[in-house]
């Protein structure tokens, strides 16, 4: 019997990252801005997408990929706004992986402007899986508390944009949006911060304008 050491040096997320890179190349070459929305369950991802559908719908073509453990409910809500939506039900998995998004990408029309991917509600696991997005947005709603960023640092560290949601509730809760933003920025100083209320339609125009600017930057070849 011989004992041997075998050097491997392989990233366990390597396969996911390769598929994500392929998705990024594909969407960016088609001039599509891909956005990954990540947050706890119930922090308002779908409600925000409904509002964005209303804001962007007239001028731009968008598509939505919904990730949930079960049910077609979120995709149905988006379709009711006249936006094509694909539901991925993971059947138990707590996050979307690039492979799952890659499978539905073939069905999505080539001539869209925005592809929003709503991840499974979870502030932990989705942070580890690149889906090939150009922008990653992490949502934090006021009822969750302003102390969350340091408790779930990777979600905030890996994001490009922080969206503080349900801002209409700030007056009724011990939630300090400035503290939440400062704590997130102490983890990741590059974060762009927005505050929105999808219910009251506050701050969504600014966010929509930011996405339009990001789309224009993508198409003009700017970073």
């Amino acid at each position, binding site marked *: *019997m011989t004992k041997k*050491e075998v050097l491997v040096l*392989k*990233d366990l*997320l*390597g396969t996911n990252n390769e598929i994500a890179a392929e998705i990024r190349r594909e969407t960016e070459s088609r001039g599509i801005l891909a956005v990954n929305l990540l947050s706890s369950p119930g922090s308002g991802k779908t409600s925000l997408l409904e509002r964005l559908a209303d804001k962007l719908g007239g001028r731009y073509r968008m598509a939505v990929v919904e990730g949930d453990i079960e049910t077609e409910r979120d995709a149905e809500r988006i379709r009711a706004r006249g936006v094509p939506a694909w539901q991925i039900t993971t059947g138990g998995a707590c996050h979307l992986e690039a492979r799952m998004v890659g499978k539905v990408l073939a069905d999505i029309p080539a001539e869209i402007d925005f592809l929003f991917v709503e991840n499974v509600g979870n502030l932990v696991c989705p942070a580890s899986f690149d889906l090939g997005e150009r922008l990653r947005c992490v949502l934090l709603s006021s009822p969750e508390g302003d102390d969350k960023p340091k408790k779930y640092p990777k979600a905030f560290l890996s994001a490009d944009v922080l969206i503080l949601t349900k801002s209409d509730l700030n007056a009724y809760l011990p939630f300090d949006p400035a503290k939440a933003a400062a704590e997130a920025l*102490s*983890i990741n100083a*590059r974060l762009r911060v927005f505050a929105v209320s999808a219910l009251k339609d506050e701050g969504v125009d600014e966010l929509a304008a930011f996405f339009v600017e990001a789309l224009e930057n993508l198409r003009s070849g700017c970073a």
Partner: protein
Amino acid sequence: MHELSLVAGLFDILEEKTREHQPCRITAVHLKVGRLSGVVPDLLESAFTVYKKGTSAEEAVLTIEIVPFRFRCRKCGGESFPEEPPFACTACGSGDVELLGGMDVVVERLEIETDDAPGTS
């Protein structure tokens, strides 16, 4: 929860290495887990224990080395290894940093046993 997905990926690698060195048994698997990889070592070990049954790694021990979170400052070029936020340069305080490590889960190396006379076992 995603530790199961990661261990499924690990066993893809172990199967590939087993085929390359056949016949062999894997006796140890050495992983490097980033401090901010989002992976819980205990859960990784539990998933490994479940997965290894009936494979060439059935008797293998898993070792996990934690790799510190590390970044370089784009302003002054200094490297920092903070344990917790703020994740800003410890030298100049800038938040404009480039992440260097501590985010990945890497299979570093395996220890295997092969039979001396191939084909006789």
